[in-house]
């Protein structure tokens, strides 16, 4: 039986990818940030899963305004790093897990989530930056990945409540897959940031950390936070945080199991325009 063993949460700031790719990770500006991920890379070596179910959002890369899926699940055998305007990031091609991905799609659609199935898609920094942060710079990624893209660009975006319920459905789907697989689920994006208008640069350290506290301790309550609070308190792009609730909803305690253990927690300001948050929760 496949099993979700842990969830990982992290911002996916494009400038972090650029810093890594250009060899700037020990610059004074970036050094404190990458230091915060050192324990995570070690933890990942000790707890490497077979498959990562990676929740992220596309940033007008694979999806233009022609077609905007609320939830899209990648069922292909591989996904290429996208050219976001400066050429593709020099990172390995992402290997998918078509069997598990279509199993989850089948199960979750029957569970009344109206997914879009995608068999051809390039993946942008939303997916590749978390991979780099957790695995460093290998020749090939050491895990298979199921990309799961959430619309947080055009309103209305899915609510925290919907995302949290989806996470629960994903957990049921994974656990009904016959093959023995160690699966992690990652939620990415956030934390507070605003990239547009006169309010660009907004950072709300207090709100971010209070939100994190609640997401860890009482995710059900956290899932009730309305959209407007994210925008007002964490900036217009802070809304990406709803994606973390998908990963959180897939943890065992939400289905009546034991509370997860916090293996690592890290918060840093700034990475370019953004507050960076990071968390590792292990199921018990």
């Amino acid at each position, binding site marked *: 039986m496949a099993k979700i063993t842990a969830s990982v949460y992290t911002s996916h700031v494009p*400038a972090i990818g650029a810093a890594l790719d250009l060899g700037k990770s020990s610059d004074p500006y970036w050094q404190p940030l990458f230091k915060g991920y050192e324990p995570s890379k070690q933890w990942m070596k000790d707890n490497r899963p077979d498959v990562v179910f990676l929740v992220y959002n596309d940033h*007008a890369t694979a999806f233009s305004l022609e077609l905007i899926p609320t939830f899209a699940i990648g069922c292909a055998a591989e996904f290429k790093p996208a050219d976001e*305007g400066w050429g593709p990031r020099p990172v390995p091609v992402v290997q998918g897990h078509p069997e598990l991905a279509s199993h989850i799609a089948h199960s979750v659609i029957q569970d009344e989530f109206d997914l879009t199935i995608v068999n051809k898609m390039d993946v942008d920094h939303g997916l590749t930056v978390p991979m780099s942060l957790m695995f460093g710079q290998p020749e090939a990624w050491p895990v298979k990945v199921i990309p799961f893209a959430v619309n947080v660009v055009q309103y209305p975006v899915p609510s925290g409540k919907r995302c949290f319920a989806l996470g629960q459905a994903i957990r049921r789907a994974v656990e009904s897959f016959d093959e023995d697989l160690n699966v992690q689920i990652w939620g990415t994006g956030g934390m507070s940031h605003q990239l547009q*208008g006169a309010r660009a640069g*907004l950072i709300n350290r207090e709100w971010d950390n209070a939100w994190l506290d609640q997401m860890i301790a009482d995710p059900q309550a956290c899932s009730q936070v309305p959209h407007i609070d994210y*925008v007002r308190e964490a900036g*217009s792009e802070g809304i990406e945080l709803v994606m973390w609730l998908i990963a959180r909803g897939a943890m065992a305690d939400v289905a009546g199991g034991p509370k997860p253990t916090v293996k690592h927690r890290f918060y840093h300001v700034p990475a370019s325009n953004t507050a960076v948050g990071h968390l590792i929760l292990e199921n018990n």
Partner: protein
Amino acid sequence: MALDKPYKDIPGTTIFDAEQSRKGYWLNQFCMSLMKADNRERFKADERAYLDQWPMTEEQKQGVLTRDLNRCIAAGGNIYFLAKIGATDGKSFQYMAASMTGMTQEQYAAMMLAGGRSAEGNRYIGEKAATQSNKEQA
């Protein structure tokens, strides 16, 4: 339309909802075209001629030509799409962000290093000037 749009009262912020998306459709699709190297070359060679191939409003075209991202956003642009213009120009995202705030890039970068723009005074329109930084408030 009777849909609740509670996000209209946040200063310096335009939520990219269906209404904005309709308004900015061709502006954003023009930006999307800049993801191809060929198109970037053609745009750089003659910006006006390239823009004139798109059914954009004159206001949208002027927003692009003058690199006034706030003007582009008011005309329906979304920042993730508009970012392709900056990439074409070889500008960083932080440069683009700063350009919308009325600060120099240095001032903006310093604000970010000092912890970013505070939410205090920036939650509701009229509460306080929306463009104030932490520093200015401190």
